[in-house]
């Protein structure tokens, strides 16, 4: 009875009120900026939303919640700087001939979960699940930060886009990263999203330049396939160059499979894309891209081209409309019109 008496409840209410006021004060002392998350003391909570409209030439049109991602980072001391990203992916909101919220394979996914330790002001040790540093697109693939709805195959296909293990990051200009995954991937993506899994992954990346406007990145990754029991080694070169209103970026990869050549059509796989952007206005840009990809399992080389327009009223918001053409073997891309709205919050 005493536990439920007003005299017992009052202190708890007071403590709650004080905590609420402290919490409110902490929020109010720091102003929220769209795209930079909410700061709650040493913790930052952010995320992004991406809704895609698809109008393929063949097949049904649909509107999909491609990603609803939340990420939380903490900076407590030099030893404890955790980061976690979870996302709800691939929820169909409407599909032609099926209606709204038709059943599909949407899923909560663990994208990243790691802790950083500051070894020196220039070097960090990262432990956990992280994005593997193979090209800039894989490291910054959030929809509000890229210029097209359709992601180039070169930036993700047939290599390990995650690494679960340890990584050293740093250098004088934060331009070097080395990583090692000694076992299978932590919380791997479903097979339908990532058919190949990797048991052991090791690699590194070095970036020349400032990694924002003008840079050139070299990446290498050796990975052992989980089920097929052989190694592959991928080399990647990517870069970006901006000159006045014009922007150019590219990535090219070469992947060698150390296995019997009879198992695949090719044991040397490659991909390359070149993308150009032109700023029409501070809030409007045109984008065009051409890509080629020779897949290990396909006899012919796949090519695709994208032309689109992007409206970005705020650096954290992008509206995109584009058309994709494809030629050659089917590699998961459908020809047609695509549009999306993406917001980083």
């Amino acid at each position, binding site marked *: 009875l005493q536990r439920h008496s007003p005299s017992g409840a009052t202190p708890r209410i007071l403590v709650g009120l004080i905590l609420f006021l402290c919490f409110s004060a902490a929020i109010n*002392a*720091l*102003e929220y*900026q769209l*795209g*930079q*998350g909410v*700061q709650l003391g*040493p913790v*930052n909570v*952010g995320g*992004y939303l991406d809704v895609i409209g698809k109008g393929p030439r063949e097949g049904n049109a649909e509107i999909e919640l491609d990603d609803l991602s939340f*990420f939380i*980072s903490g*900076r*407590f*001391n*030099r*030893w404890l*700087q955790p*980061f976690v990203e979870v996302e709800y992916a691939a929820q169909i909101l409407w599909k032609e001939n099926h209606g709204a919220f038709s059943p599909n394979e949407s899923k909560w996914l663990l994208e*990243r979960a790691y802790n*950083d330790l*500051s070894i*020196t*002001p*220039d070097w*960090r040790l990262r432990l956990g699940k992280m994005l593997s540093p193979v090209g800039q697109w894989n*490291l*910054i693939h*959030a929809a*509000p*930060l890229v210029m097209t709805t359709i992601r180039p195959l070169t930036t993700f296909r047939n290599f390990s886009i995650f690494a679960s293990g340890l990584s050293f990051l740093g250098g004088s*200009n*934060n331009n070097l990263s080395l990583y090692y995954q000694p076992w299978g991937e932590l919380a791997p993506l479903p097979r339908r999203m990532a058919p190949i899994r990797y048991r052991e992954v090791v690699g590194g990346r070095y970036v020349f330049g400032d990694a*924002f*406007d003008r840079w050139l990145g070299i990446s290498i990754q050796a990975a052992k396939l989980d089920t097929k029991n052989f190694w592959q080694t991928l080399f990647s070169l990517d870069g970006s160059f901006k000159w006045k209103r014009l922007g150019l970026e590219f990535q090219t990869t070469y992947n060698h499979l150390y296995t019997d050549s009879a198992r695949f059509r090719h044991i040397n796989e490659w991909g390359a894309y070149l993308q150009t952007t032109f700023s029409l206005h501070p809030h409007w840009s045109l984008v065009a891209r051409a890509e080629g990809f020779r897949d290990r399992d396909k006899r012919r080389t796949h090519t695709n081209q994208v032309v689109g327009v992007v409206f970005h009223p705020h*650096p*954290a918001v992008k509206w995109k409309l584009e058309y994709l053409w494809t030629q050659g073997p089917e590699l998961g891309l459908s020809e047609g019109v695509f549009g999306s709205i993406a917001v*980083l919050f």
Partner: protein
Amino acid sequence: MRRILIFAFLFLHLHSGWCETLLVIAHPEVGIDKLDQQQLKNIYLLKQNSWPDGTPVIPLNLPATSKQRSLFFEKVLKLDMQTAANIWLQMHYRGRQPPHVVSSPQTAVTFTSRVKGAISYIPAGIETPGVKVVARFQLENNQ
């Protein structure tokens, strides 16, 4: 004679444009007493994340509309604000925390004095109890 001197002073003052001093302040326990422009750029672009003793660096920003913020980025860091905003979005996605925005220079002083690892910039002339000045920039606009 006095009028001539006043006139000459006003003429020189107007001719030379404005002049403003910005101070960079840090929590008194950060293990560094002086920072140059490149070090500040690394801190505000989130490339340097910790002080020599390992304490996380917590950079603060004044509001986007503040004159001192545009002066600090354009004259001290030699960066346009749009580029800086885009960099922070990318770094935020990569797990770094962008500079915290405080509402005023006075709040910046209070926050910096209380939170270990904090660093900020403020206009000169504001009282700075409990912080240390690690850089001073006299900015002139010679139009």
